[in-house]
């Protein structure tokens, strides 16, 4: 009996991107610390909503988000390196400047940080977002809606199409 290969060689598929759940390289402790400072500046605590770094499992989802936008990883980490030396009290102004002058960096950076935050189950529950999921309609749902008479005004107006020879 032939044995299964220990590792399959995975060829890149033509029409399907590779899904990687790890960033292109490991992030250092200092880099993560800076990312969390930036995240808290853009997504601070407010009412029942935690600051980004306090959302449960945020760092885990941050790594997933960095992997999902691997295309922007180098630009984002360059920005992290630049912002690492910015004191807390100046960070918001620095981010506002980046927002105004360098959208090519700010947009993916902010998307990654916000994307990670809104992936966390805790925050999804807080904002009432159940995630995309299977939720088939009940058999009578559509009929019940139409039985409210909502379509009646349209039917009462009748046909609106423009006649053309041949139809």
């Amino acid at each position, binding site marked *: 009996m032939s044995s299964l290969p220990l590792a399959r060689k995975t060829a890149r598929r033509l*029409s399907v991107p590779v899904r990687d759940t790890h960033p292109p390289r490991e992030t250092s402790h200092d880099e993560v610390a800076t990312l969390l400072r930036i995240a808290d500046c*853009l997504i601070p605590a407010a009412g029942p909503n935690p600051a980004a770094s306090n959302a449960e499992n945020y760092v885990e989802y941050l790594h997933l988000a960095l992997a999902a936008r691997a295309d922007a990883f180098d630009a984002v980490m360059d920005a992290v390196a630049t912002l690492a030396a910015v004191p807390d009290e100046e960070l918001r102004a620095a981010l506002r400047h980046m927002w105004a002058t360098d959208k090519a960096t700010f947009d993916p950076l902010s998307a990654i940080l916000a994307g990670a935050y809104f992936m966390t189950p805790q925050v999804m529950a807080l904002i009432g977002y159940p995630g995309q999921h299977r939720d088939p*309609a009940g058999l009578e749902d559509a009929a019940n809606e139409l039985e409210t008479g909502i379509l009646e005004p349209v*039917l009462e107006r009748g046909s609106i*199409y423009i006649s*053309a020879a041949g139809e």
Partner: protein
Amino acid sequence: MTTNVSNTDEPTVDVLVIGAGPSGAVVTHTAAAAGLSVICLEQGDWVNPSDFPANHPEWELLIQHDWAHDPNVRALPSDYPVDVTDSDMWPVMFNAVGGSSIFYGAEWPRLLPSDFRVKTLDGVADDWPISYDDLKPYHDEVDEFIGVSGVGGDTAYPEGLDYPLPPHPLSKPGMKAAEAANKLGWHWWPGTNAIPSRKNKTLEQCGRWGVCEWGCPQGAKASFDLIYMPQAQQAGAQVITGARVRKVVTDDEGNATGAEWVDRDGTVRFQPARSVVLCANGIGTPRLLLLSADDHHPDGLANSSGMVGRNLMLHPNCTAIGYYDENLESWRGPAGQLIHSMQFYETDKSRGFVRGAKLHALPTPGPLNTIEAHRELDFDDLWGPAIHDVARRSSNGILWAANSEDLPDPDNRVTLSPDQVDSDGLPAPKIRYTVSENTRKILKFTVERMVEAHEAAGATRIITQELWVDQPGHLLGTARMGDDPTTSVVDSYGKAHDVDNLYIADGSIFVTSGSANPTCTISALALRVGKKVVENVSARKAQS
């Protein structure tokens, strides 16, 4: 890349289809079911429902790049670059079995009777050589096959329009949009979608995932890799993936003899055929005809009219997203149209433009998508404490969107790029496209109407976009049909005027664009073309 053809002894097939999108799948099935030998060449490969981004928590980030609609952003191995350096808009497509139906919303409106007669009615563009009635039986057959869901009797159409499956619920966003339309006295109708409300053949029942335009994780959308193509294979058709066609070959008599294609090892192969049907979309088909230029056809194959690549129409899209105080559960699908409105479809000269737009209301799934929709806000209105409220709005949104009618202009065209090539060294298509003044007026007018709809429904925030430059997936008109060979590329059955056994069955053959989402019409036309191919090939085989 090797330039010599490596194989010369492949068996000749009756029908060679190039491109496995909606039109390619319909033609492949039609010919195979009639007993003809068929090969379909596709440069991409198969995509499984389990591959799609919405299977994963990071789906909203994946659709920003890796699964982007724009092939220039996504840049998968199956994609070819599209040179948009001289274009107002950036055409999008998906290159795989199923084609761009992988990513479409499956909105399924037919063209209206007036669309076939715009020259007669409005004095612009040209009439089609066929009518609404000519196409209706083909529509009915396609709708029955794929299981279109909708409500019959739409008052925007002549009598006799019905659908095989019951409609999807309007859900809270659709009900709210419909109530506003009633308040304004507009036509609207429950959304017609190529998304089965009940299981149909190889398609699952819709699970209302809400991510139709990024691939259905449930296989519950008429993506043509899941319907028509499987049945074509069962009927004996062969689908060859990873096959990028570089040239349609003709003989001294001017007939097509087959096509040269490049496999993923870079080897050039030749597939001989008795007939060739191009189904490579409104960008890929003219590109291939231009790539097929030779000494006998210096301006490209089937191009004695000079119309190959001209009259590109892209249906410029505009949107108005409204956010409401109440939770509309707007993460729920289908998306897919919940309702559509043809109120502003036809010409009303008092508006200052001709023709119009088709409007549709959809849900707004995803908190990050909602944040992205708010990017134009000032920094402090989005980034900071405000972000929590913005994200909550994702469940409270309604997206009104519209396709505007895009009249043909010969200067809007596809040519071959002088400096961009694909991974096989073939010239990329170059797009030259300018949004017309008439279209800009339609877009402005339509956005104003969609804002009215939101205001009538009580929206508390409305975000408008008058032109989506990076979303035109409706690729039309670049090898138009017509009775006159001097002004058109193919006849009304898609047969090239210049090449007796070469056909085109995709959106290239549209004469005008209408403003209805076109895959419905593309599929009906493809069925009509496919049946004519079967008739002609069978007759020739009987004679020989």
